[in-house]
């Protein structure tokens, strides 16, 4: 398959050039070509007026190209400081490593982006957003002429986003060219000077941001009109499906969470990075079982000791990290979709290929998954379509409670709207939905009620029509403002 | 498929005789020397010689090779048996197909072969080793054995006879330990080093697999105990010459290995040709002379004891 056709693209010094496009449009692929991670089949790349051929990651770095990849490319077994050093040092093999210097610089860079991370910790102990922050620190420290950011805010909350924006503006002021990829249009309008839209591996056009509006951008991306408005709530909440009484898990840093989610209700879960939302979801799904408190489903207490028990009890969890947890990239889409319903779809453990295929085709149609067919491996899909497969897997379990962790992270506007509609429909059908999201407009637009987490526990419970300011205040722990 | 008819000493008449020679393991200088003698005999006889065996001592592999030969259609099999019972059924099955079987070096059960080319019986080896150890130590004191592996069955047989002899004749001697060396010289050397210091009263090291003899000698030499602790064992003269001359190793016990290979092939061919039959009292083995037959054992002669005086006369 050809991910990129003829793409022409230019970047000036001191500009922020946004790259936009639907899922699978080829943005990440283009980036990989520019950083030398993939070899192009044809075409030319010039940097500072000089044509470069045979680009490798090492040469790209020497040319002053730095990149924050969509998937953090860090070394989990090495410390944060070392990770930063590996990215920044000139890699002469026989050079000595200056440990003190490395730690000092790491601390400095992390401080500059306002991340409270100890440079000595191993990266494996960091959460996804914290890893993203380390990536940003790396790109910042590279002193590069060109900095590429592939969805850097996907897992960041507002506070870090603002810090990141400051960093981007600072880079621009220093004459650095920034390529900025994001699905969040408001960021693009806030940050970018020019914007290039990709569609199906081709560039549709480049415009100054000043000369374009949201509607026309969306039109360029999808080639049709899409409303970016959240679908209205249609359901009235019913009986309590999930009740949490003082649930906690010391290992995950979650304590004393009490919460109720009703049938037909979408409960938004907001909070800053590391507030413990994903950890709470992992507790409910039995991955790191609770060590205190009670989980009550439909009035019955359940000890969710493993994902299997959770699935049996009717809990479904669409995880945050879809490439590692959401789909198995090497396996066919159909197998991915049926993975959580083995006992039901395959009685007596016997595989029924026909039934599986039929079910997969249903969901591919229903969720409009862009694919060659149910036999295609999950890894052949773009991020947004992978997310649809992950969602399909859990819808197939016909759960009572659906936990969504960043359901539209890295998903383009078109697919995002579809996913939102699906979520609404599910709620209408009586499903209880717990939706973790760092996308504040999404939380505000979708939720019937909003639980705000801070420091591993629920800091505030707000109605769905709250304003962004109130939610942020609660997340930041400013009770005076939250009450106001 | 029937037993080939014309397997006499001349290759001109009838079908060429195919003799299969099975060592206990390949890649081992002892059996490489046997093969040398065997090839000489086969050339003399104008017969084809197949030589194959397990790459490490392995009774299962021996069976598989014999069964393969039966299918190949050899005239006669000469086998050194890693394990008496393990291989007897396979050899009997070969006999049922009309293939003659002799054994050499170490025997199988008597009903699974016609003759055993006997360089020394297990009892003979055990007794010789024990008697020699007793002679060297003045019939008293501690000694230890180094063997190849704890599962090597012919060595276990020898150990049995050594211990029996010890009990019977040498009450003042004591076997303090038995260590395996995995058929490696270095490991034997390490084990010997430890034995020498762990048992300060040790008077003698008895190495019953060939790499262990120089290994034990080197350990004794390095410990500065040459002469004080006697070394003897079953090994090849070429591997031990230096130690014997230096007085580290006192005795190396062995037979003329090349002659064993030669005699085995001669006897196997004669059995196949029908010229060597049960009841014979003597067998003419050509260039190495006439050999005595006792019952169904063709005797190569007594084991040799190589020492300082005579070791220069041998080059294998």
């Amino acid at each position, binding site marked *: 398959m050809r991910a990129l056709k003829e793409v022409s693209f230019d970047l000036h010094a001191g500009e922020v050039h946004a790259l936009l496009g639907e899922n699978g449009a080829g943005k990440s692929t283009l980036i990989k070509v520019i950083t030398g991670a993939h070899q192009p089949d044809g075409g030319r790349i010039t940097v500072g007026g000089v044509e470069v051929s045979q680009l490798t990651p090492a040469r790209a770095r020497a040319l002053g190209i730095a990149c924050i990849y969509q998937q953090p490319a860090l070394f989990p077994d090495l410390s944060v400081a070392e990770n930063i050093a590996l990215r920044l040092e000139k890699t002469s093999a026989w050079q000595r490593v200056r440990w003190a210097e490395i730690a000092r610089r790491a601390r400095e860079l992390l401080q500059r982006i306002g991340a409270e991370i100890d440079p000595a910790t191993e990266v494996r102990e960091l959460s996804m957003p914290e890893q993203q922050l380390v990536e940003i620190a790396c790109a910042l420290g590279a002193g590069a002429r060109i900095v590429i950011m592939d969805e850097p805010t996907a897992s960041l909350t507002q506070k870090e986003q603002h810090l990141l924006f400051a960093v981007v503006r600072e880079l621009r002021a220093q004459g650095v060219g920034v390529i900025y990829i994001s699905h969040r249009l408001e960021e693009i309008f806030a940050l970018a000077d020019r914007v290039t839209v990709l569609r199906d591996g081709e560039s549709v056009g480049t415009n100054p941001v000043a000369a374009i509006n949201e509607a026309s951008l969306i039109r360029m991306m999808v080639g049709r009109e899409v409303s970016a408005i959240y679908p209205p709530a249609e359901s009235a909440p019913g009986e309590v499906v999930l009740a949490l009484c003082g649930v906690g898990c010391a290992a995950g840093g979650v304590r004393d969470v009490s919460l109720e989610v009703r049938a037909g209700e979408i409960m938004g879960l907001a909070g800053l990075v590391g507030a413990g939302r994903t950890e709470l979801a992992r507790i409910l799904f039995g991955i790191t079982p609770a060590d205190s408190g009670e989980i009550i489903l439909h009035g019955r207490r359940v000890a969710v000791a*493993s994902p299997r028990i959770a699935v049996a009890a009717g809990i479904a969890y669409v995880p945050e990290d879809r490439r590692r947890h959401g789909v198995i990239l090497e*396996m066919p889409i159909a197998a991915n979709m049926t993975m*959580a319903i083995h006992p039901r779809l395959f009685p007596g453990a*016997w595989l029924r290929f026909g039934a599986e295929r039929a079910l997969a085709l249903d969901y591919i149609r229903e969720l409009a998954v862009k694919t*060659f067919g149910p036999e295609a491996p999950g890894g052949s899909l773009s991020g947004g379509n992978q997310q649809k497969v992950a969602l399909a897997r859990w819808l197939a379990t016909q759960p009572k409670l659906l936990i969504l962790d960043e359901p539209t992270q890295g998903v383009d506007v078109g697919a995002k709207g579809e996913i939102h509609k699906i979520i609404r429909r599910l709620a209408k059908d009586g499903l209880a939905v717990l939706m973790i999201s760092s996308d504040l407009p999404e939380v505000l637009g979708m939720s019937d009620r909003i639980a705000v987490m801070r420091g591993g526990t629920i800091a505030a419970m707000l109605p769905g029509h709250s304003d962004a300011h109130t939610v942020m205040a609660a997340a930041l722990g400013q009770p005076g403002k939250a009450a106001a | 498929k029937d037993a080939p008819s014309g397997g006499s000493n001349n290759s001109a008449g009838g079908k060429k005789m195919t003799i299969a020679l099975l060592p206990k393991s390949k890649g081992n200088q002892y059996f490489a020397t046997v093969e040398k003698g065997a090839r000489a005999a086969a050339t003399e006889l104008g017969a084809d010689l197949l030589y194959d065996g397990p*790459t490490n001592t392995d*009774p299962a592999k021996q069976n598989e090779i014999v069964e393969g030969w039966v299918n190949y259609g050899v005239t006669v099999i000469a086998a050194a048996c890693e394990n008496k019972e*393990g291989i007897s059924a396979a050899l009997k099955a070969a006999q049922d197909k009309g293939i003659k079987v002799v054994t050499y070096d170490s025997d199988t059960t008597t009903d699974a072969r016609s003759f055993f080319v006997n360089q020394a019986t297990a009892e003979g080896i055990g007794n010789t080793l024990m008697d020699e150890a007793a002679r060297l130590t003045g019939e008293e004191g501690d000694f230890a054995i180094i063997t190849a592996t704890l599962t090597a069955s012919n060595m276990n047989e020898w150990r049995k006879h050594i211990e029996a002899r010890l009990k019977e004749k040498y009450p003042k001697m004591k076997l303090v330990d038995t260590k395996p060396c995995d058929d490696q010289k270095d490991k034997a050397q390490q084990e010997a080093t430890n034995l020498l210091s762990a048992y300060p009263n040790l008077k003698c090291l008895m190495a019953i697999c060939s790499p262990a003899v120089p290994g034990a000698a080197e350990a004794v030499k390095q410990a500065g105990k040459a002469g004080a602790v006697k070394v003897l064992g079953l090994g090849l003269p070429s591997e031990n010459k230096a130690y014997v001359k230096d007085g580290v190793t006192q005795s190396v016990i062995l037979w003329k290995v090349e002659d064993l290979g030669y005699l085995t092939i001669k006897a196997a061919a004669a059995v196949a040709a029908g010229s060597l039959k049960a009841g014979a009292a003597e067998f003419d083995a050509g260039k190495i002379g006439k050999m005595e037959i006792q019952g169904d054992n063709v005797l190569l002669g007594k084991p040799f004891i190589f020492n300082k005086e005579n070791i220069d006369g041998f080059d294998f």
Partner: protein
Amino acid sequence: MSQPAPFFKTLLARPEAVLLFVLVAELVFFSAVGRNFNTADNFANIVRHSAEIGLLALVMMPIILTGGIDLSVGSLLGLCAVLFGVFTHEWHIATPLAAALTLVVGAAAGGLNGGLITGLRLPPLIVTLGTFSLFRGLAEAITKGTMTYKDFSPAFLALGHERALGLPYQGWLFIAIAVAISVLVHRTTFGRSFQAIGFSPEGARYAGLPVQRRIATTYVLAGFVAALAALVFTARLRQARADAGSGYELQAITAVVLGGTSIFGGVGTVGGTVLGVACVAVLTTGLKLIPAIALQGIGSELGSLLTGALLIFALAGGVLAKSLAARRARRQSLAKPQPQPIT
């Protein structure tokens, strides 16, 4: 929708097809050059001599499919053989009961591997390296290295020597186990989860699959079948000793990997494993039936050497073929349709 690729192309893209080709080539070659290769006795020999390693390979396959490995199966074979001897000769238990008991012990020993690997999340390579020494060591300790159990009942020995419908008993046993494992791996949710675990243990866990239980299952199965192989081995050699099955683990792994199962997990078929076993068995047996090689006295060394070379060539060939195919696909991709939502 995907275009149905030309039949031969898809066939050749599969490692099994390459192996089948190699096997046929071997059979043709040895029939032409080998002496008495094409005989019923020879095929019976091949089956009898490779049955135990074949059995171990069959159960090694699901383990490798989950991304694990079991270095202890050969040692466990030795331990089970010795225990069977102890049961029949020292405890005087009737043979069928002793055999059943041996199978239970084998499964339990596999359970020890599985328990340590899943209970404590330890890497299989290390755990089974430890039990590789432990099981063999126990076998040696029980027999003090020297004890050999022999004189088993004739009915039991038939397992190693008799044939039914021209095929040795252990051949039937191998077929039965191969079919069972094949069904397990390719037709049940067990196999599906082995595959998922092999690709991504974390992903499988997040899908609600009982990952640890499934992994443990593969090791218990391996222990059970290793005990079965021990019985076959004992019947074939008419004796039980502590050194039974030495080195079999590596030969089993060789056959599995040759059969196209990825050592990284996730990819592989039971049919491929069977072909891998057959290729090695035919090669090592066939070489010895070539007069020129037999006369040189290098049959065994050459067999091992060529097996090693075959393994490298099979793997390298697979890689090269894949990269060629990828290059061709890239050239053709302009003509191909882009994926569309299925409507």
